C-alpha cells in the first residue's frame, strides 16, 4: 500500500487537497513506512515555519481603498 503514496500525494495531504479515502490511506502508510513518516514530518515542519512569515498591510492602506470606494460610489448608492 505504501508504494501507492507518492511524495506529491503527501504535499496534497498536508494542504488538505485530497479525499477522505485518500487521507485514510496516507494515514496508514505513514504509520507503516518509516521513511515516508520522516519525509512527512520534514514537509510538515517546513509548512509550519511558513505560517510565521506572513505580512499584513497597514490599516491606513485599507482605509485609503475604502475611502476611494466611498468617494467613487455611484450617486444612487450614496443617496
Amino acid at each position: 500500500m505504501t508504494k501507492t503514496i507518492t511524495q506529491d500525494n503527501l504535499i496534497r495531504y498536508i494542504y488538505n487537497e485530497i479525499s477522505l479515502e485518500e487521507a485514510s490511506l496516507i494515514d496508514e502508510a505513514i504509520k507503516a513506512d518509516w521513511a515516508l513518516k520522516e519525509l512527512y514530518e520534514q514537509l510538515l515542519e517546513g509548512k509550519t515555519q511558513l505560517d510565521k512569515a506572513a505580512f499584513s498591510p497597514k490599516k491606513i492602506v485599507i482605509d485609503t481603498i475604502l475611502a476611494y470606494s466611498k468617494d467613487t460610489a455611484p450617486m444612487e448608492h450614496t443617496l
Partner: protein
Amino acid sequence: MQPQSVSDKKLVKQYMSGNESSLQVLINRHKDKVFTSIMFTVKDTYLAEDIFQDTFVKVVDTLRAGRYREEDKFLPWVLRIAHNLCIDHFRRGKRMPMVTTGDGFDIFDVLKFSDTNAQEKMIHEQTAERVRTLVNSLPEEQKQVLVLRHYSDMSFKEISDMTGVSINTALGRMRYALINLRKMMVEKNITI
C-alpha cells in the same frame, strides 16, 4: 449572519448593489494573502503597499463597471490582478526586484506600542524575517508556487491555471520548496 460566514460571491453581489461594508469584509478576509503574495514578489514594503492599493482600486473599478465575471473566484481573480501589476511594475522599471530595507520593517509600527508589546512584536518580526529570508532564497519557480499555495491559499489546480504549469509540476515545486526550506534551516542551524 456573521460576515465571516457570508461567501465571497455574495459579498461581491452586495457590494455591486451599493453595500460599501461588504468591500471591507472582503478586503479584511483576504488582505494578508494578497499583501504577502505581493511582498514576496517585490520585496519592498512601500512598493507593496502601492501595488496592494492599486490592486483593490482596480477591483473596485472593475466591479463598478460590471466587468467582473461571476464564474471567477474572487481571491484568485484579485491575486491575478496583483500579479499583473507586479509584472507591469518591473516591466516599466526594467529591473528585477531588489531588497530595499531587507526587512519590511516599519519602525513607526513599533513606536505605537508599549515597551512590552514592542518587544514581543520585535521578536515576532525577527522570527518572521528569518523565515522570509529563507523563502526569498528559494529558486524563483519554487517560491512562486509556495507563496501562491501557502500564503495566498490557492489550490494547486488554481496555481496551475494561473501560472501555466501542470498540477504535477506545481506539486513538485512545492515539495522541493518545503524540503529545501528545511534543509537550509538545518544547514544554517536555525531554530525558529
